[in-house]
């Protein structure tokens, strides 16, 4: 063993820059492997989360209460709130988990004038007048309202706290539970209260949990809505009769939003339309239509995922080939460079097997050390799916060692000792 270590160390020192070049090459390969692993993990998780939605068409519902005068007339009807509530309940009953309400309506939150909140402002990316908005005591923050079916269907993963229960979707008269995007995590804790206004109604929000980074949802209008800077609210249902006119107006406006949801269905369009007609009929609400059927959003996402997967495979395969080829070439060059010393070892009593073991040990060392360093770095910095990552690196290690050692082994097999001695002349 000592002899092997001694020879490996000397061989590494003898062609220092050559060894460094190989080590860099292998480290690069492990880093690329890490990037591919992370990308793959992300794509796979996205693909897994979207799998239940594969082959669905999105039917966006829209109330027909336009122009404003028509809307105003409807809101002034004494039974309009009951009508809206009935319609919403019937939509949920008819379409069940296929009816998803996901709407990004901003919520105003009472916050200090701190620059850190800027990216959380509603419209930040679209160039909202941040400086002017900051002067307000209630800042308009990005928020998403989601119904219970939506919450279940998108299976929003949490890093802390608890998700919404069925009761959370019914307003208790005091507080509203919310989930905060991952970027909120440094600023709030589970259980914190947030003073807010939603559709001009004063509310207290309770932080119930934090969403994992890079979580996204989507609807008819937003193919990918990342929740990192969003406040996620349950799409509330109000079981009690409103006590004031303002309350009633608030509920009416709120339910008007809830009925403009999306039906995710794999059924034929005429079936969806027939079912909707039935809901309209039993709810006595005729101003409702399907704005459009859109399978492109999901198709686009699935084909994008497929393209990403294929691209990833091609990239991984090409990079792997290039790296393996260059490592093999470098090792063979090193082997040929060592002909003279091999002859001296043989004349000193070594066997070819011993000489091969030196090369093998060197390959083990040169592949193993960068692999170990990259794996430990990953554990320190990233740590995502560490078990799988370690398994992948172990396999990568084994494959590189095998592929690098194979040409050497073949060279050794056809090697004639006399040729070594001739080369030493």
């Amino acid at each position: 063993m000592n002899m092997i270590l001694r020879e490996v160390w000397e061989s590494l020192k003898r062609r220092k820059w050559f060894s460094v070049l190989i080590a860099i090459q292998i480290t690069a390969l492990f880093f690329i492997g890490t990037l591919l692993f992370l990308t793959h993990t992300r794509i796979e998780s996205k693909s897994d989360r979207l799998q239940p939605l594969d082959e669905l068409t999105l039917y966006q519902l829209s109330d027909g209460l336009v122009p404003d005068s028509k809307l105003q007339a409807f809101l002034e009807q004494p039974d309009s709130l009951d009508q809206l509530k009935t319609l919403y309940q019937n939509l949920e009953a008819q379409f069940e988990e296929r009816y998803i309400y996901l709407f990004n309506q901003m919520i105003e939150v009472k916050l200090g004038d701190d620059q850190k909140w800027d990216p959380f402002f509603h419209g930040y990316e679209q160039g909202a007048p941040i400086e002017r908005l900051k002067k307000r005591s209630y800042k308009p923050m990005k928020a998403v309202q989601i119904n219970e079916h939506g919450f279940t269907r998108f299976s929003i993963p949490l890093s802390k706290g608890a998700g919404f229960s069925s009761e959370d979707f019914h307003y208790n008269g005091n507080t509203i539970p919310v989930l905060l995007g991952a970027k909120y995590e440094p600023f709030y804790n589970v259980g914190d209260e947030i003073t807010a206004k939603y559709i001009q109604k004063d509310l207290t929000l309770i932080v119930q949990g934090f969403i994992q980074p890079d979580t996204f949802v989507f609807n008819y209008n937003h193919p990918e809505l990342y929740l990192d800077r969003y406040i996620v609210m349950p799409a509330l249902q109000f079981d009690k009769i409103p006590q004031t006119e303002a309350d009633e107006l608030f509920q009416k406006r709120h339910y008007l939003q809830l009925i403009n949801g999306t039906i995710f269905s794999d059924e034929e369009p005429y079936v969806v339309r027939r079912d909707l007609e039935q809901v309209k009929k039993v709810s006595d609400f005729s101003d409702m239509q399907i704005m459009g059927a859109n399978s492109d959003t999901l198709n686009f996402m699935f084909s994008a995922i497929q393209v990403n997967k294929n691209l990833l495979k091609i990239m991984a395969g090409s990079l792997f080939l290039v790296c393996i080829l260059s490592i093999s070439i470098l090792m063979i060059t090193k082997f040929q460079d060592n002909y003279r010393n091999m002859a001296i070892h043989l004349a000193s009593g070594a066997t070819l097997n011993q000489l091969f073991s030196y090369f093998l040990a060197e390959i083990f060392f040169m592949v193993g050390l960068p692999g170990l360093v990259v794996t430990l770095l990953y554990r320190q910095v990233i740590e995502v799916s560490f078990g799988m990552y370690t398994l992948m690196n172990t396999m990568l290690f084994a494959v590189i060692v095998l592929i690098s050692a194979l040409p050497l082994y073949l060279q050794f097999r056809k090697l004639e000792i006399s040729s070594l001695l001739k080369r030493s002349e």
Partner: protein
Amino acid sequence: MITLKDLRKSYEVGERQVDVLNGLDLEIKQGDMLAIMGRSGSGKSTLLNILAGLDTADSGVYQYKQVYISEMNGNQRAQFRKKHIGFIVQNFALIDSKNVFENIALPLRYSKLSRGEIRDRVDRVLADLRITELQSKAVDTLSGGEMQRVAIARALIQNPDLILADEPTGALDEQTEAEILDIFAKLNQQGKTLVVVTHDQVVADYCQQIYYMQEGKVAPITS
């Protein structure tokens, strides 16, 4: 000590087969010092490699004392080499990345000796060849004569019965050549058997017997 009978060895050169050894017979007695001369490509080095157990003949018998080397496999021949052979390769053949001490100690590293034993043996050989002061030097700082002394020290470190030398003075000046040949003569006086492959008549004249190699066979010139 050594009996070679009807040794045959050929190489493929392109599509042509070249017979390097063609029924070679040779007897070497314990304590002999013999030179093998011949033109380049006549098979001298091949013969030396076979004697060292580094190469094998295609057919024929190689007997060392009571042992048939020609029937051994690679590992057995490595053991034989380690135990009985001291090989001085052309152009000194020292490993640049090792210092003098490590170059000399190399054969001992394959013998599972303790550090102390290795140190003792190397010290003894260094003293015998009067190169103790060189032990920690890098080999690329040595003169040709010093390098050859180190190569001889490495060949002697296992205290072999048989010393094989391939053109041992080819790269040396006359004075250094004479010093090296003196060392060989002393070793022979101590009972070592030496087989020296050379082109140099001066070297051959130091030996008790000179063989000439031609057409894959050896024949004595003087005795």
